[in-house]
């Protein structure tokens, strides 16, 4: 459908597209993504000749577009831009009809197409057709922007970060709509974005570019499983790692190196540590570093002891997990016990860490949104 053969574009000394060759198949939803300046927009705009390459050939339907009249070419390719670009001097209906009118469709035909398209995005012709773009919200405007691109039923639609300027809620609902339209209309969509979430959500095929080259061209699943470079991995954030559901254990969620003392430490010293660290209990360990139990401020108070080793204060039991234990089980223990934490032990019964509600929440946040460090 769309084929690039050794396409090169330079501005002065900087190479924007470097000997680019690839193909987008008919009916595919291809998403061009990459860091800014990677050439994704230039690639898109050379498909409808808004930008002319310096070397190489681009074929649309087997025809070299350099030999097609650019005005005619553009009428056969839908185009949606980030700034929406609805003509403010025309009504919504007139905007949608811009390309069909160029193609000399009958007036009644244009009206019919406009009604159908507007129904498709849930904006009735009666209500919105005669409004001016400035009377619509941003999301509604871009819906019309997309419809304008679809109006003459072009086999190819190019979209240059069309949802980049919209708020997340609107963006998400427009993404859903564009997926629906793509499924329904069986057109070839070429979509530029810098948002990997958007690419993963929309694409049949993601084309990842950097420095005018294609680094990887793959389906979203392939790219998640097997990102070709560290840059792609960083674009995907945590998602790549999560693709194979790793068994999370207590160790992933604990706070390591909690404060612990030997049984032989003095009571006074222990209360001082607690006061200094603003905690109300201490982990107690035996002389061989194995876990013995927990002593709280209250139990020290109740015992009435102010001197002597801490080991003489009654040591309480506490919920315990092992580092290899499934994270979910230690959560259960934490939620079901009346204690503020679960003690996590190594295989040899030495103390590894504690799972608190805070450490749990933090670990979950890391897993969801990536390391916040």
């Amino acid at each position, binding site marked *: 459908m769309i084929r690039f053969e050794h396409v090169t574009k330079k501005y002065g000394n900087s190479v924007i597209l470097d000997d680019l060759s690839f193909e987008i198949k008919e009916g595919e939803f291809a998403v061009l993504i990459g860091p800014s300046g990677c050439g994704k927009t230039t690639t898109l705009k050379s498909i409808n000749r*808004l930008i002319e390459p310096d070397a190489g050939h681009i074929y649309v339907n087997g025809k070299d577009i350099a030999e097609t009249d650019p005005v005619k070419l553009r009428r056969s390719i839908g185009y949606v831009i980030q*700034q929406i670009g609805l003509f*403010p001097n025309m009504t919504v209906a007139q905007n949608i009809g*811009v*390309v069909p009118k160029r193609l000399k469709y009958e007036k009644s035909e244009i009206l019919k197409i406009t009604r159908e398209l507007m129904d498709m995005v849930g904006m009735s012709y009666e209500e919105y057709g005669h409004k001016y773009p400035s009377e619509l919200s941003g999301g509604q405007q871009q819906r019309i922007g997309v419809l304008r691109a679809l109006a003459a039923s072009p086999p190819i639609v190019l979209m240059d970060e069309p949802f980049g300027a919209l708020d997340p809620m609107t963006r998400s609902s427009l993404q859903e709509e564009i997926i629906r339209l793509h499924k329904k209309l069986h057109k070839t969509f070429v979509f530029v974005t810098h948002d990997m979430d958007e690419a993963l959500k929309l694409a049949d095929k993601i084309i990842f570019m950097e420095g005018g080259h294609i680094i990887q061209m793959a389906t979203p699943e392939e790219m998640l499983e097997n990102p070709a470079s560290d840059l792609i991995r960083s674009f995907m954030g945590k998602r790549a790692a999560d693709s194979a559901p790793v068994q999370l254990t207590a160790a992933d969620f604990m706070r390591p190196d909690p404060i612990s003392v030997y049984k032989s430490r003095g009571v006074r010293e222990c209360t001082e540590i607690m006061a200094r660290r603003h905690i109300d209990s201490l982990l107690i360990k035996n002389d061989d570093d194995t876990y013995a139990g927990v002593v709280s401020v209250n139990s020290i108070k109740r015992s009435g002891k102010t001197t002597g080793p801490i080991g003489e204060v009654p040591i309480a039991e506490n919920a315990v997990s092992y580092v290899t234990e499934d994270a979910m089980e230690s959560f259960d223990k934490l939620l079901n016990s009346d204690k503020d934490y679960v003690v996590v032990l190594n295989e040899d019964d030495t103390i590894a860490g504690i799972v608190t509600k805070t450490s749990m929440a933090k670990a979950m946040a890391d897993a969801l949104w990536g390391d916040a460090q």
Partner: protein
Amino acid sequence: MSFWDLYGQKLLVAIGVHFLYVLAAVSIGFVIALALGILLSRAPGIAKVALPLISVFQTIPGVVFIGLLFLSLGMVPATAIIALAIYAVFPILKNTYVGLLSVDKSLLEAARGCGMSKMQSLFEVELPLALPSIIGGLRMSTVYTVSWAVLASMIGLGGLGEFIYIGIATNNNALIVAGAIPSGIMAIVLSLLIDAVKKRVTHAPKKEASAA
């Protein structure tokens, strides 16, 4: 005999002549300015040189220019109209140029991307969007021209200037006022009229101009 009985007839004729000068001069100036403005907006490089040159020309006093034109063309209405038209060009030209250049670049890209030819983009997108600015220039030109048209009488071509000049020469204040007030009213009425037109075209953008 009252003032009106003496001069009424003459005053009405003078108002009519004055108005015709303004109408003819502004119409011609508008067409020239619009065409020049469009051409210059396609070539901003040339415009950077041309616009300051034209604005320098604008500073030549009207009296000098109308006098020069009188020497070569003689005492015909065309002399006054040509001179006034040339002065009417600049405000419209400048506003047309600025208006066209201030059209959002993303709209130009959208127009191109939609497969509009350059002409279609100009007539259906750029000119309609520049219209408020162009009409603003038209208004300015019209108001100026009403006052400049007073100069026509300097070379014996009538208009309200005649009253003013005769009034000054004969020390007759009534005549001066009789010339000045109608020209003042004419300027105000025309500018209100143009404002109304501007409001109309900007508030409810008409159906798409049919372009080539």
